[in-house]
């Protein structure tokens, strides 16, 4: 049981998908201006990533490996992810049109979010079984949401700070993200205890 806990903790804190693996930066920068949009985006990505990990595992284990089609792995993963994202967009458009409008272009962009493709591929290379890959996907997505929400909290305060004019907006956001990943480096070396 503890290995599952370590997978999740490892994915959320130790090698956080945004701060340590530096994946999924464009939505991280684009959507974190306000806390509501950040949480909305985090929830959407969590749903997509967990589904994607499950689907990619099934496709990989039952479709690609028996027919030695490993070279189709990336292609088929992308197709399934795109379909899941389209499904999510329809659901969000129906349930909360404001969130859909505010997330705007970043909702379909989940497909191109490198974290969403990266994690399933990592699952394959780490040879996780079905449950482990689901947990790893969910953990990484929680790490992504955590990063997004924390960053949203800070940016909402930075909005009112007297930042020098040339550093206003994305520049100061980049610097803050850099310092945040510096802080997450503190967890380095924690996962050798698995």
């Amino acid at each position, binding site marked *: 049981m503890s290995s599952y806990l370590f997978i999740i903790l490892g994915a959320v804190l130790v090698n956080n998908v945004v701060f340590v693996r530096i994946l999924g930066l464009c939505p991280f920068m684009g*959507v974190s*201006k*306000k806390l509501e*949009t950040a949480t909305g985006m985090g929830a959407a990505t969590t749903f997509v990533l967990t589904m994607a990990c499950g689907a990619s595992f099934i*496709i990989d284990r039952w*479709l*690609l490996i028996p*027919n030695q*089609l490993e070279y*189709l792995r990336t*292609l*088929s993963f992308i*197709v*399934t992810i795109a*379909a899941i994202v*389209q*499904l999510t967009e*329809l*659901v969000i*458009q*129906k349930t909360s*049109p*404001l969130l859909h*409008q*505010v*997330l*705007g272009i970043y909702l379909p962009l989940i497909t191109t979010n490198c974290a969403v493709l990266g994690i399933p591929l990592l699952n394959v290379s780490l040879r996780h079984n079905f449950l482990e890959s689901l947990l790893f996907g969910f953990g990484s997505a929680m790490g992504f949401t955590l990063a997004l929400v924390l960053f949203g909290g800070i940016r909402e305060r930075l909005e009112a700070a*007297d*930042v020098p*004019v040339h550093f206003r907006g994305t520049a100061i956001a980049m610097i803050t993200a850099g310092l945040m990943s510096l802080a997450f480096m503190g967890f380095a070396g924690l996962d050798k205890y698995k």
Partner: protein
Amino acid sequence: MLEALLVMALGAVVLGAALGYAAVRFRVEGDPLVEKIDAILPQTQCGQCGFPGCKPYATAIAKGEAEINQCPPGGEEGIHKLADLLGREFKPLSAEHGIEKPKSVAVIDEQACIGCTLCIQACPVDAIVGAAKQMHTIVAKQCTGCELCLPPCPVDCISMQPIGESVESWKWKYPVFKINPTQREAA
């Protein structure tokens, strides 16, 4: 090679079917966002944004055809609110749509008015009282300052007068920072 094509075709078919079903089930009609945008606009119906009124401008913004900085009566504050609502970048007011003027009210010069009722038909909020060949006058409380009555007036007897501050409507000023100018421009 054949299996690869087969697998991909199978994937495409299955996912296509799922999406088709979802598209039907999650049909969405109308767009509540237009009301939200329209609620922010100042409702002067003045047309300076290039659209015949605030509602058309709101639908244009919702569809993405119009920028959020084309409304001079809404001013910088209106643009900030639109930027927040739509999550877009704040852009200063675009010059070709006019400049932000202090809120003012139209006043008819009684000597010059000939009672031609052209301004009455032009006023979007029916704030002008009068009849053919009778004296016209503008109800100050209802005039939104959209200046649509200025062009049709043949004798140019309508002038815009900014609304002065009364003791009740006086606003506290932003505390001036005497010592560091940058902080003032930042705020």
